[in-house]
């Protein structure tokens, strides 16, 4: 389909065509593309706050002892940093931005199945975020439990835990509703000729993610309510002083929060799977293997939560079962990595910013995955559990993986979203800062973690100083990279983007940049294979 088939009568989705104009039109929109941007802006704002909190922690940790704030403030800050980054950014993250913007277009749909529910999910997200913000200022001081809300600390501490927990509870509903919406969209709204196995792999990943969102999130919801029940009504669920069991909390928490890691990473893998064929101009290698591995991760991922609890004193039989299952869930991720790298073989590789982010993703995610094996093995997990090794590992997965995939996706679909190009050179410089800063920041944490440096420590022994200082310098480089990247993307000077700047094959590249409000006025042509570069 060429540009001529879209006459001027179809203005871009960015132009207000209805009765409402400006901000009112945006806040009442049911267009999946606009809702994606609503999420993008909100996530961007929270990400900047979360990153600043992280930078203050790195500054505080530059030297042993107190630099400029005390331990209670430090504890509140790492709690808020975790709450924001996990619940407001990476759990919704790629699903709500790219799942909303490109997934319906990729399957040839004009919108998601329930557009109003989609907008309502965004409002729930904002409400949940607002309650988390309120928890910081109202009541008896900002929560200091860590994002994990481990009982019985969370049921005893004097700080404002109830508000923070309620915020997370509301955010859970936003996630469930988005999941339901996307499952129905993918089942019911695919354009007639697009069968499941003609679908691109991002929709596959979004589909697997959506099932986890729907099936796992209710568990965290009820668990958080149990904390409130214990705090308010003194019902003894978790606190042994009331007859409860603190280990029960950990089971319930991780039954959700481990699958939640796959809620974060699966759509990230989906984005990488779109970027690599485009910039290699090659059909994806192992289409079915990648599609099924997403489902395998979503399935097996439910049964590995116990690996967060190897030192908790749970049954020694359960321990080895969880260890074995944890190792098995590593295999589908490895399959994806091998398929991505093989897709580059004999391709025609263009190292544009999205491809650089995708390659950085593969490197960082591989480090995150391989260090995960150290934690899956019982003997070695005992040594690294609750140390900064874990902090480094999950930042490699969540920031190096999910974060870099998000930035890669943003640089990939940016011309489609806004109809403009960004400065490629500046984007490459920002990428360089981010990649270098990231590794300087988190790699030393592996080293001191092996030496026993515990996590969530306000202060540390002098032998860890050098590594902590390298980390802090890395943190600042990362911050500089983020500033350059944000300025580069959002200054209003880029030239107009062509419809298909990177030579992509999926349906979104057949639409004008930016797309019209109604994506497809006639059903699009569907090729037999979504990555057909022949």
């Amino acid at each position, binding site marked *: 389909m060429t540009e001529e088939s879209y006459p001027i009568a179809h203005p871009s989705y960015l132009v207000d065509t209805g009765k409402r104009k400006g901000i009112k039109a945006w806040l009442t929109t049911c267009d999946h593309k606009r809702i994606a941007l609503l999420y993008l802006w909100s996530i961007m704002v929270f990400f900047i706050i979360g990153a600043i909190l992280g930078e203050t922690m790195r500054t505080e940790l530059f030297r042993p002892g107190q630099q400029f704030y005390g331990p209670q403030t430090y504890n509140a800050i790492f709690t808020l940093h975790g709450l924001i980054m996990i619940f407001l950014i990476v759990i919704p993250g790629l699903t709500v931005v790219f799942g909303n913007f490109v997934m319906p277009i990729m399957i040839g749909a004009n919108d998601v199945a329930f557009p109003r529910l989609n907008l309502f999910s965004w409002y729930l997200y904002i409400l949940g975020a607002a309650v988390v913000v309120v928890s910081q200022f109202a009541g008896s001081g900002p929560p200091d439990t860590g994002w994990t809300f481990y009982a019985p600390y969370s049921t005893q501490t004097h700080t404002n835990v109830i508000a923070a927990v309620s915020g997370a509870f509301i955010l859970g509903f936003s996630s469930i509703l988005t999941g339901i919406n996307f499952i129905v969209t993918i089942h019911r709204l695919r354009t007639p000729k697009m069968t499941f196995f003609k679908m691109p792999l991002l929709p596959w990943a979004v589909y697997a993610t959506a099932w986890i969102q729907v099936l796992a999130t209710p568990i965290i919801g009820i668990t958080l309510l149990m904390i409130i029940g214990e705090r308010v009504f003194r019902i003894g669920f978790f606190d042994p002083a009331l007859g409860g069991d603190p280990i029960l909390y950990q089971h319930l928490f991780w039954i959700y929060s481990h699958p939640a890691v796959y809620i974060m990473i699966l759509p990230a893998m989906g984005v990488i799977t779109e970027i690599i064929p485009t910039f290699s101009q090659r059909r994806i290698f192992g289409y079915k293997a990648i599609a099924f591995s997403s489902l395998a991760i979503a399935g097996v991922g439910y049964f590995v939560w116990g690996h967060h609890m190897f030192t908790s004193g749970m049954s020694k039989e359960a321990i080895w079962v969880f260890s074995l299952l944890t190792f098995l869930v590593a295999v589908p991720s490895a399959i994806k990595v091998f398929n991505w790298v093989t897709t580059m073989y004999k391709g025609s590789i263009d190292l544009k910013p999205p491809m650089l982010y995708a390659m950085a993703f593969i490197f960082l995610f591989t480090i995150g995955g391989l260090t995960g094996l150290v934690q899956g093995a019982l003997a070695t997990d005992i040594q690294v559990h609750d*140390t900064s090794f874990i902090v480094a590992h999950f930042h490699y997965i969540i920031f190096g993986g999910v974060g870099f995939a998000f930035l890669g996706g943003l640089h990939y679909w940016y011309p489609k979203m806004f109809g403009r190009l960004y400065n490629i050179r500046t984007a490459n410089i920002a990428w360089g800062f981010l990649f270098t800063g990231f590794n300087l920041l988190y790699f030393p944490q592996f080293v001191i973690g092996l030496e026993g440096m515990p996590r969530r420590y306000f202060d540390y022994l002098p032998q860890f100083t050098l590594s902590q200082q390298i980390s802090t310098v890395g943190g600042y480089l990362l911050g500089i990279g983020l500033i350059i990247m944000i300025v580069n993307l959002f200054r209003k000077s880029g030239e107009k983007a062509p419809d298909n700047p990177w030579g992509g094959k999926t349906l979104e590249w057949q639409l004008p940049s930016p797309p019209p409000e109604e994506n497809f006025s006639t059903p699009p042509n569907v090729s037999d294979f979504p990555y057909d570069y022949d």
Partner: protein
Amino acid sequence: MYTGASNFVEGVDWVFKLIFGIGFFFLFLITGMMIYFAIRYNRKRHPKAEQIKDNIALEIAWITIPTIIVILMFYYGYAAFQPMIWVPRDSMQVKVTGRMWQWSFEYPGGRQANELVLPINQPVKLNLHSVDVIHGFSIPDFRVKEDVVPGKDNYMWFKPQRLGDYEIFCTAYCGVRHSYMGSKVRVVTQKDFTHWLAALPLASAEPEGLTILKKNACIGCHSMDGSKLVSVSFKGLFGKTETVITNGKQRKVMVDDTYIIASVYEPDKDIVFGYQKGIMKSYKGLIKEDEMKKIIDYLKTLK
């Protein structure tokens, strides 16, 4: 780091080397291929991509080989962990108590210490107890760690094999002084150990008031030697005149029975000038009135 300080070090470190070895191999392989392809098949050098169809044999290979490798890793991780569960019968038993934010160690015969002194080559079983929230008992040099969970009888065992001092960390986040909840293991000869143990005070010789203060984790924030932790020190507190903030107004009070009871039951009512509100919870119902009297009697002795 690889010191052989306990009987577990060798086995655990072997698994570390195995997993890191295989990990680095795959990391270099994947990264190396990726960079090689990016250069060799760069668009400038290789403008037309070759379309390569899926290869079932290759897919099966890279499903099977990683599966075998991870099952091996699982096995060795499990095998090196097994001995940590089975405690030898001749182990010396030490009761470890974690409270916000201090460790204490009770030896057979009821003697108590704040550091863990152990005779070399004697297997020891640590019975882990918490009086408040979850703590984590970690001795990195010995490769051991176990959570200390209230209401649950967790344990660990090991055999110290080298003389010296080793760090103990609390690894499970437990509140404001979490990062200061450390102690030391001192591994000494059997002879030195016997001397040291004999010189320790008996736990039962402790004043009742102090026991109550320890049980409720008061001394995690209120020191007994005059140093400033989270809040005012107990040393010399009774009978002192303090400046407090009540409902936003500054006033002076004399620390007496009434004031102490009020600040335990309603800690946020009068805040000593210079300290933060909202950190201490109310102990109403948790510390009984007769216990309060014993605490006050004890505080009077802390001059």
